[in-house]
């Protein structure tokens, strides 16, 4: 099993979810995060005090999938999350040694 972590633009979340569902993914966990990267931030000004805001709102999406699904899932996210502009985000893949479904105690791919 692999954990695929995607950092994407917030307004792309629904499109990505649909693409993933189509690709056979049944579970997703998302987090609101702030990202720093090549995409440039903006300046905020409060009564003359200027703040450069480098951290931009992003969504961090995690899904654990069976090994054979990985390529398909990466492709699905890439296509649904891209705009072609700087700041589209990243995909990271890590190995998952074990998965357990809390409700039933099922383990491995059955738990997903």
């Amino acid at each position, binding site marked *: 099993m692999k954990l695929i972590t995607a950092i994407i633009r917030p*307004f792309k979340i*629904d499109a990505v979810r649909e693409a993933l569902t189509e690709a056979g993914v049944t579970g997703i966990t998302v987090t609101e995060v702030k990202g720093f990267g090549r995409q440039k931030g*903006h*300046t*905020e*000004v*409060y009564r003359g005090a200027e703040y450069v*805001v480098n951290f931009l709102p992003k969504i961090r999406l995690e899904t654990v999938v069976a090994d054979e699904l990985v390529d398909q899932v990466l492709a699905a996210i890439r296509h649904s999350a891209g705009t072609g502009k700087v700041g589209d985000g990243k995909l990271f893949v890590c190995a998952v040694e074990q998965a357990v479904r809390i409700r039933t105690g099922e383990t491995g791919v059955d738990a997903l």
Partner: protein
Amino acid sequence: MISRALIAAAFLGVSSTAHAATGEIDTGTTAWLLTATLFVLMMCLPGLALFYGGVVRAKNVLSIFVQMYVSAGVIGVLWVIYGYSLVVDTTGMVEGEYSFNSFVGGLNKALLAGVDPQAAASGVPEGVLIVFLMAFAIITPAIVAGAFAERMKFSASVLFLALWFTFCYAPVAHMVWGGPGALMVNWGALDFAGGTAVHINSGVAGLAACLVLGKRTNYPRIPMPPHNLVLTLTGASMLWVGWFGFNIGSGLAVNGQVGLVMLNTQLGACAGILGWALMETLTRGKPSALGVASGALAGLVGITPACAFVGAGGAIVIGLLTSVACFYAITDLKHRFGYDDTLDVFGLHGVGGIVGAILTGLFAAPSLGGTVEGLDIGRQLLVQTASVVFTIVYCLALSWAILKLIDWAIGLRVVQEDEEEGLDITSHHESAYNA
């Protein structure tokens, strides 16, 4: 028949009452009009700003507030330059006759020429009247702003509000409240506190704005739920309370009538809540918070023109029917026609104003509990309809023209990236919420 127009006329020295004649201040009437003015100002800021601000997305909430502050600033100053005069100057008007000044006031009071804010008019210092009427002139354009929220350029929005105030609000207000010789006064239209000048006017302008401007990007494909309904409900509550200042204050007097106006205003709101809650329960199984707040305001919009002319039963029926009509307009009609009226300005103020204006002609009849002796229902319904249709046509045409002009001159919409990032950051360098 006691109409606000006549009272206004009295105020403006066209006819004269004992008080006006002696030029004495009545402390009670003045006390109330001071208070009423404060409540009408509170309706706009923070009331309407919160009501609107809670429904937009978090990235645009400040843009609502900036628009309201700046347009209050601009209109406040324009009001003493020419606005007050355009609304109240009665030069050239003769009861029952039609002239250019039936449509808009002259400029004899421009720059407050000849006006002494300390002098009594009908028992109240004129300065109080100036600010009371200014509060109406500030809140009406602010209502319109809800229709184009989340996508209009800031510069364009301010320009629009200032031009709209000049060419739409001021003339229609004059036609309704200008006293004998003003268009709708001549017609005999019943509009106590501004169903036409305020609600139909702003509602129709809102419709024009969202049609000319187009939908928000991704609407309705991406959900855009209200970012903070507590703000919205707080704002709605303040609007409700302030509405008494609006409706009762519109009589410009403290007399027996204020009892009727207060009671009817409250019953309109109560019945409006029940109407919307009922419709939601029938169609969805449960009433919602945004729904009951919208219902209260719908009822208040409906009762605005009628509040001094109908009985308690009439007020309840008007509140109920207006609310049901607005519910239908907002939850069904809007989706069917597919325009994107961000804050439902047309659905609430336009539709509510129209329904209220028509029903006023009905329930003002003594046979239906109304107070307007000798009213001929058929004729009055015609007059009411005429005033409604006139307002719609005039306002639609003018609003459209102003919008097209601005679009041609400086462009109406922000670029799509700015819309996505949010107006707060892109138009004002700020975020409403910071950790």
